[in-house]
């Protein structure tokens, strides 16, 4: 039972994380390879505040805000770049953030990480049991889903897709691509921060090693597998992949196997990404209007 709750919570958190990336990747065509940096910022800011006895509400808001601001700061220079250069620049930024977290030991305790992050308490409700925490994350996930759904189904979302498909045309029609891209980027970053806050308070221990390229690849895979540019895609992708990844953790295996299981799992993820790109780049849930155009 604990296993199922644990899985559900992680799926919910990663759904938020994937939905946030999808706004950038799927709708706006921004291939952000550094998305984990905002997850990390949300996690660290809220954790540090909580460990200083700040209330959870404050930590939550601060985490989301700092992640959003981070998106603003990084987006300003990076969004001037095209296509895969943007991807590589964001990747570089994410690694720089991670190295800062690792080396500024006085602020972040560096590689030793932050243990003992307290479970949330909102208006004297303690979310320290698994079912309670599941309620919290489900609530957040539903909220994220609704907000992002609203945004993407609105005219705003249509402009984003237009920019993704043909930026020049969108510009000609009078839309400012840079402004729209920036908005999408900041929104995506903020929600990633939300996912990070929920993660930190669930696992109760974070360290810079939790926020590497591997996590970016995982969330990218979720978005791509599930179907970018759709609302349900990221959620489906999260459910499928997290099930696979986390349930294996709870198997009763001889300890000698654990050295093999980890890399094997990751190999399958890498392979999955490759196979998807060759055979089905649009993912499980296809975007409406894209059934005939799957190579551009």
């Amino acid at each position, binding site marked *: 039972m604990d296993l199922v709750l644990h899985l559900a919570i992680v799926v919910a958190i990663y759904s938020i994380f994937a939905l946030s990336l999808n706004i950038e990747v799927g709708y706006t065509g921004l291939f952000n390879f550094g998305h984990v940096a905002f997850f990390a910022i949300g996690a660290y800011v809220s954790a540090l505040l909580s460990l200083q006895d700040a209330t959870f509400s404050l930590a939550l808001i601060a985490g989301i805000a700092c992640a959003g601001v981070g998106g603003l700061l990084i987006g300003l220079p990076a969004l001037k770049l095209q296509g895969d250069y943007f991807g590589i620049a964001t990747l570089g930024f994410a690694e720089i953030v991670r190295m800062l977290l*690792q080396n500024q030991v006085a602020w972040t305790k560096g590689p030793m990480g932050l*243990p003992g992050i307290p479970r949330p308490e909102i208006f004297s409700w303690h979310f320290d049991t698994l079912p309670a925490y599941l309620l919290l994350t489900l609530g957040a996930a539903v909220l994220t889903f609704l907000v992002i759904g609203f945004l993407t189904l609105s005219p705003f979302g249509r402009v984003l897709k237009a920019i993704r498909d043909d930026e020049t045309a969108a510009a000609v029609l009078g839309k400012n691509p840079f402004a729209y891209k920036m908005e999408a980027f900041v929104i995506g970053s903020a929600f990633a921060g939300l996912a990070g806050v929920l993660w930190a308070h669930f696992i109760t*221990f974070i360290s810079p090693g939790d926020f590497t390229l591997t996590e970016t690849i995982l969330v990218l895979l979720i978005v791509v597998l599930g179907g970018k540019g759709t609302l349900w895609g990221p959620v489906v992708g999260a459910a499928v992949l997290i099930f696979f990844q986390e349930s294996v953790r*709870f198997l009763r295996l001889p300890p000698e196997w654990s050295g093999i299981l980890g890399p094997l799992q990751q190999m399958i993820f890498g392979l999955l990404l490759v196979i998807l790109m060759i055979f089905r780049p649009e993912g499980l849930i296809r975007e409406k209007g894209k059934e005939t155009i799957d190579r551009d």
Partner: protein
Amino acid sequence: MKRFALIVSVFSLLACFSVAPLWAAENVKIGAAFALSGSIAVYGEGFKKCVDLAVEEINAKGGINGKKIEIVYEDNKSNPKDCVSAVRKLITVDKVPVLFGPAGSSNFMAAAPVAQESKVVMLSAQGTAEKLTQAGPFIFRIIPSNSKQGQRLAKLAFELGYRQLPVMYINNDWGLDLKDGFVTSFKKMGGVVTDIIPFDEKKTDYRTELLRANKDNPKAIVNLTYINEGAVQFKQAFEMGVKTQWLCGSAARAPKMVELAGKAAEGVMGTYPSVIQDTKEYKTFKAAYQKKYGDDKIPIFGDYNYDMVYLTTRAIEKGGYTAEGIRAALPAAAKGYKGVTGDKTFDENRGMEHADIGIWIVKGGKIEDHKK
């Protein structure tokens, strides 16, 4: 697509159900979150050997109240995040009331809040950072802390005639802790610390740090390092032609370090919570280890792990096989208890009351006690 989703769901469900109810009915289960893979697996494997030896002996004598002890091992992959997962899994899936914690003060301290929150007893046989047990009353350690080590290391430096030296330390709780202890003591004695250089774990190239430490050709360098890192550092220092007296802490005092570093480790000295090996208890332990494993090179901290098993057994016998019972019974079980590593009485912070610090030196490819 529907078929794909079906296959995936079936697979996932199968995966869930393989968490079969454990049929090990009447065994006394104790958890152990050791590093069985990854960079500090060299520590974890040694611990497992000594723990297994102790368990074998106890079970041969009838176990605890007739029930056999079973250790449930969980690999913590040598990183703090997986330590947290491993401990969590032992608590939620295996439901153990007591468990042996991971090596590495940072790793241990990452997982300790989890045990404390779930009110499960967690013991450390090798974590020497000062604040190791701060997570709460369910956390114990049976090895003396760093505070005495820092003082002794400073004293050693002075005895050997060094008044000025740089300090390199591994960037984790253990290193940070010991560095602070050393620097405070050394300065109080009138010594001068010329540079403080933290370095990351698990790197393969420390030449930058070594170059900086060796900048003014100091006669001695304090290097608070682990086994793998130390081996790399001593080797690279040798290649760079660095000639200095290395002064280390307890974590590098391992046959494995000497094996990896080869001749570059010759002459390295350090402090460690010492264990008098001349006692009857130690000799019996050493003989039993030799009989089971065929050599008498006791792995680093293996002796402490051996004691940890016996101590836990006594606590279970006294207090019952529940977390609260064990927690309450531990101080009484340990008071005056002479394990192979000496007197195991707890102090008020659930650490060790008694601490002897010895000096080790690498001579002729072997680790020996330094005789003055």
